[in-house]
């Protein structure tokens, strides 16, 4: 559908959404665009300060170096989705309770909604977009497809990252059902796909060992 029309659902909303939003903003409510904190330069000792306005941030996203200007009160989740347009990572509870926003930070699964963007300065972040390579789904993603490990799909990108974290830290080890269950205990799936997720991860672990 989207190919034929030359337009995507997200692209359409993005176009009309921001224009409408900015039109409705009083100038004082617009996000600040400069760092004008005098304290940042005048800090004592070795202490450094960031913000409150947007400040430069560099990190690695799915193997690629990224530099952007982001304010300290922006979460990693918001920066990924709204600034870098990596929308594979989902917003659900935004309070660290559901796991839909799980990403790997230096290989460790973390809730990107409870992480500030500036927390990942210099770190390597992997999102669901980083799993496939060369247009080919990863072993884990293929196992998800084969085992019907998703239904509505909203938890899937986070679920995949928790499972990817497990596979990376247990590489070469034999996994038990309990290992997978423990690894996904922070990922809520309202469709109840858990048994199929467990089967998919066990298959992927067997296949890559």
């Amino acid at each position, binding site marked *: 559908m989207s190919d034929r029309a030359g337009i995507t659902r997200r692209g359409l909303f993005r176009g009309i959404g921001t224009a409408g939003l900015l039109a409705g903003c009083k100038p004082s409510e617009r996000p*600040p665009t400069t760092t004008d904190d005098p304290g940042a330069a005048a*800090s004592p000792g070795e202490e450094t300060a*960031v*913000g*409150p306005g947007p400040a430069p941030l560099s990190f690695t996203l799915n193997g690629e170096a990224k530099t952007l200007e982001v304010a300290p009160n922006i979460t990693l989740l918001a920066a990924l989705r709204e600034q870098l347009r990596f929308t594979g990572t989902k917003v659900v509870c935004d309070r*660290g309770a559901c796991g839909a926003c799980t990403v790997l930070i230096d290989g460790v*699964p973390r809730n990107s909604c409870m992480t500030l963007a500036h927390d990942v300065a210099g770190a390597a972040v992997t999102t669901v977009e980083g799993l496939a390579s060369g247009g080919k789904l990863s072993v884990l993603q293929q196992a998800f497809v084969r085992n019907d490990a998703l239904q509505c799909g909203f938890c899937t990108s986070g679920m995949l990252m928790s499972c990817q974290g497990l596979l990376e830290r247990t590489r070469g080890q034999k996994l038990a059902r309990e290992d997978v269950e423990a690894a996904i205990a922070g990922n809520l799936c309202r469709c109840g796909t858990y048994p199929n997720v467990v089967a998919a991860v066990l298959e992927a672990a067997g296949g890559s060992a």
Partner: protein
Amino acid sequence: MQPFVLSRPKTLAEAGDLARAQPQDSALRAGGIDLIDRMKEGLEAPARLIELRWLGESEAVMRALGPDGEGLQIGALVTLAQLAGHEGLGEAYAALRQAAGSAATPTIRNAATLGGNLLQRPRCWYFRHADLVCLKKGGSACLAVSGENKYHAILGGGPSFIVHPSTLACALTALDAQVVIRGTEARTLPIAELFVTPKQDAKREHALQPGEVLVRAILPKPGAEQRSGYAAVKEKQSHDWPLAEAAVKMSLQSGVMTDVRVVLGHVAPIPWRSREAEAALEGKPASEALFAEAAKAALAEARPLRDNAYKIPLAQGLLREVLHRVAGVPLPE
């Protein structure tokens, strides 16, 4: 969240100076799980977050996890995931390992720290709702008294009826931990003195002053044949706060229990050490009948609110289970 400045001091002295300069308008941040949650909910809007994760090598003690003399030290920045997987927490300190591994979710445990877990604010829904009155927010009443109080205190309550939210606190209290605090001076407290009851001050749960930083916890050298254990009951297996917790420590020699500690969690505004249960067990041979007696004694003073009387048999059963497990006495069918 309102805009704020992230300050990244290299030393605890600088961190303390920054916090004292803006006592009402700054917050110390470690893992930030509870802090960011409170800021998103509009409960707090500090103008400055003072980041402890960026402290330099001179403050390596904040990240230490290992032997301290004949005991064990745990830096405030050690994550719950590190604790849950730490092999140095053998049978003597098992309660702490089990507690750390049961809290929150695996992804939260990868970020949440010892210090943040101990110093987090209560999870009472009246406290957590920005628009509702609460003694802890300077209000005139505790709505839990006459409101929905299924998850509130049955022991030590009043005038506020929160339950202490820290899972590590329960285990660390049973293990006789001490905490090291650094402000303009350093001080070391038995962990029980870190916690503030609502009768002492309804607005706070810990005794730290502005600019003071919790640096580390120290577990004393284990007693002879020391063993310990922890368990919690929750409505869900994961993603949930305990309804009740129990942590037990004892030295068990020839079946006789000495140096017994019994602590209940999520039943009171502080980790609830039951000296009644300890007295019932101390110096006696472990047995099913004695455990039942001790569990009864632990809850004898409970005063439930409208919706939480269920916590009495729940906590009794949980305590018995942990005592059986720690002492190696088979559970009755």
